[in-house]
């Protein structure tokens, strides 16, 4: 009979409603640096949040996701940084780094060629547009973000951008709540590598909402590398609206958080676009990693290729709900979804669920899910070449991760995502 490790202590957790109210009180309703459209959203979101509690088990989308860890985080803005203690590596060549912790003070910086900030009427026209189109404006995690977020980083991407845009937050050991908002509008034919890096070491919440509007024949290669502590929470919403001919790839590598909830929501509003989603989540201890993805095609001939991978050890838990919506107008859609989980412990848990809503009759949609331990035949093959069992297991785990990590934008190399995943791994 395996012994269960003790649950993390729960110091002075507030009830959900009290926690939200305390947070709203601690975060000002208005900031001088906010532009009018964001302020309007902020006030609306605060109003909506005031009368709600945390989502709980009664809501299908949150059924497996215990948010109680959130209420142990001090409900106040993140403490200010104590001097420059950051140990980030230098950006890769051709990469332009935007430290979100220092935003918006550096807002007047010189942007790379082809990247321009959106202000005034342009911002008003674009802010929240993708959220509305993807019907995520009133998602709880979006409301929370809208109610307290820093000024949005809103950018227009013109064709010809050659740098990778790296947006980074690192709350280090500090406690509290930080909320970041990013809005990208890719013009027709534009192409961008975007790398999001969110790191934390203290009891903190990192809330991030990314909205991206992809113009016709534009390409967004989007990487997310997120790593946090057992007492940290990540809530990440990524909403993307794709015009015909556009190509969107999202590669997300996530580890360490006590609770990580990621919600990529893609809309191919007229079909005829290409989406690729790649996820790798490593859970251990009592961590929960929850991915709820939704891809909706509202036009014909759209394509999706989705692979969600999980490594679960100790008492880690992973939840994956992959929704694909193919209404009548989305004929000749091609969608493939695969969930692959490695269960390295008897006490880890995987909940994985494809959710295909297909009305169109001329489509090709495949889905599959595997949950297994390391493959014995693979282990034996490596051992039969002189490689000791623990090293063979490490090689296999590395290979399992490498398939996803290798698809991150190349600028991610300076964050050594694979090493940070593997260095803390327990031996199977």
């Amino acid at each position, binding site marked *: 009979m395996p012994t269960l490790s003790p649950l993390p202590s729960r110091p002075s957790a507030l009830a959900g409603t009290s926690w939200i109210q305390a947070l709203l009180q601690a975060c000002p309703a208005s900031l001088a640096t906010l532009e009018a459209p964001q302020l309007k959203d902020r006030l609306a979101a605060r109003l909506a949040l005031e009368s709600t509690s945390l989502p709980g088990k009664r809501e299908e989308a949150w059924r497996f996701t215990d948010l109680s860890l959130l209420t142990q985080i001090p409900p106040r803005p993140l403490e200010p940084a104590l001097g420059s203690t950051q140990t980030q590596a230098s950006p890769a060549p051709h990469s332009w780094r935007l430290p979100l912790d220092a935003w918006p003070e550096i807002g007047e910086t010189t942007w790379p060629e082809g990247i321009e900030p959106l202000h005034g009427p342009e911002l008003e026209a674009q802010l929240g547009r993708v959220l509305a189109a993807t019907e995520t404006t009133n998602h709880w995690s979006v409301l929370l973000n809208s109610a307290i977020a820093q000024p949005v980083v809103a950018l227009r991407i013109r064709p010809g951008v050659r740098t990778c845009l790296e947006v980074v937050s690192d709350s280090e050991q500090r406690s509290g709540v930080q909320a970041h908002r990013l809005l990208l509008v890719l013009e027709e034919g534009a192409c961008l590598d975007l790398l999001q890096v969110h790191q934390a070491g203290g009891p903190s919440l990192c809330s991030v909402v990314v909205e991206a509007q992809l113009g016709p024949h534009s390409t967004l290669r989007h990487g997310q590398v997120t790593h946090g502590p057992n007492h940290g929470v990540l809530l990440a919403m990524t909403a993307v609206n794709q015009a015909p001919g556009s190509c969107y790839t999202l590669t997300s590598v996530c580890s360490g958080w006590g609770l990580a909830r990621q919600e990529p929501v893609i809309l191919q509003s007229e079909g005829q676009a290409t989406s690729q989603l790649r996820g790798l989540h490593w859970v251990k201890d009592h961590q929960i990693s929850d991915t709820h993805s939704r891809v909706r095609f509202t036009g014909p001939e759209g394509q999706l290729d989705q692979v969600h991978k999980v490594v679960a050890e100790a008492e880690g838990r992973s939840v994956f709900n992959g929704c694909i919506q193919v209404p009548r107008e989305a004929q000749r859609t091609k969608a493939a979804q695969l969930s692959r989980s490695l269960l390295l412990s008897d006490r880890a848990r995987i909940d994985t669920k494809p959710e295909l809503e297909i009305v169109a009759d001329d489509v090709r949609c495949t889905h599959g899910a595997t949950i297994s331990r390391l493959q*014995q*035949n*693979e282990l*034996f*093959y*490596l*051992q*039969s*070449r*002189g*490689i*000791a*069992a623990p*090293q*063979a297991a490490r*090689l*296999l785990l*590395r*290979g*399992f*991760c*490498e*398939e996803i990590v290798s698809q991150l934008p190349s600028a991610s190399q300076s964050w050594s995502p694979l090493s940070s995943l593997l260095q803390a791994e327990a031996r199977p």
Partner: protein
Amino acid sequence: MIRPDAPILLEIRDLHAQIEDQPILHGVNLTIRAGEIHALMGRNGSGKSTLSKILAGHPAYGVTAGTVLFEGEDLLSLSPEERARKGLFLGFQYPVEIPGVSNLEFLRVATNARRQHLGEEELDTFSFEDLVRDRLQVVQMDASFLDRSVNEGFSGGEKKRNEILQMALLTPEVAILDETDSGLDIDALRIVAGGVCQLAGPNNATLLITHYQRLLDAITPDFVHVMAAGRILRTGGKELALELEARGYDWVDEELARLQPATPVEMS
């Protein structure tokens, strides 16, 4: 090359084994000396591949009786990786695909494990690349194979050539090649057989498991063994393989019937 005074590399005595309580080997005896090339033939299901996997230490099989000595040492007490490091090599009938693990990295780690056992210096990435490029010529493989994942997306012939490449890097004392010729076209068979011949020498030995004379046309065996019902039923020279090619295996049934109840067949 038969030299009666050559050291014995592998000695199998009365080996009985099973998988999930199903007995498969019923007393295998086989002695292999340095410099020898042995061919092991027999019908499907006769126990040839099982024997090879047991020798390599596959965890699914259990040895119920008998001994195996590798260079005088009890082989069965060693882990699969220890066997490989000491110089036992199994070329897989179905080489395993390992997505995400680069072939180059895999070959380097394996080679260094063997070198460490031999007391040789481990090779860094650069020195290993020099070595592996040299060995690639043995199997006429393109260097682009090194950048791919282990066996992933390889054709049947490429997988078998990759096995021989591993053999060329690990320089085993005893190489067991389990149906290395299956699924190969004529050119690939020639390349693979040529590689095996290049690597065979006076100080090592090869056990070829095969169904076909065509492999033995390219690699002349010193001994041919016929396996049936979990034991070696007959041993002869290279002409035994030709006889099998002409006569098939019907005689095996008659011989087995005479042997009932099962008793081990002694080998000279």
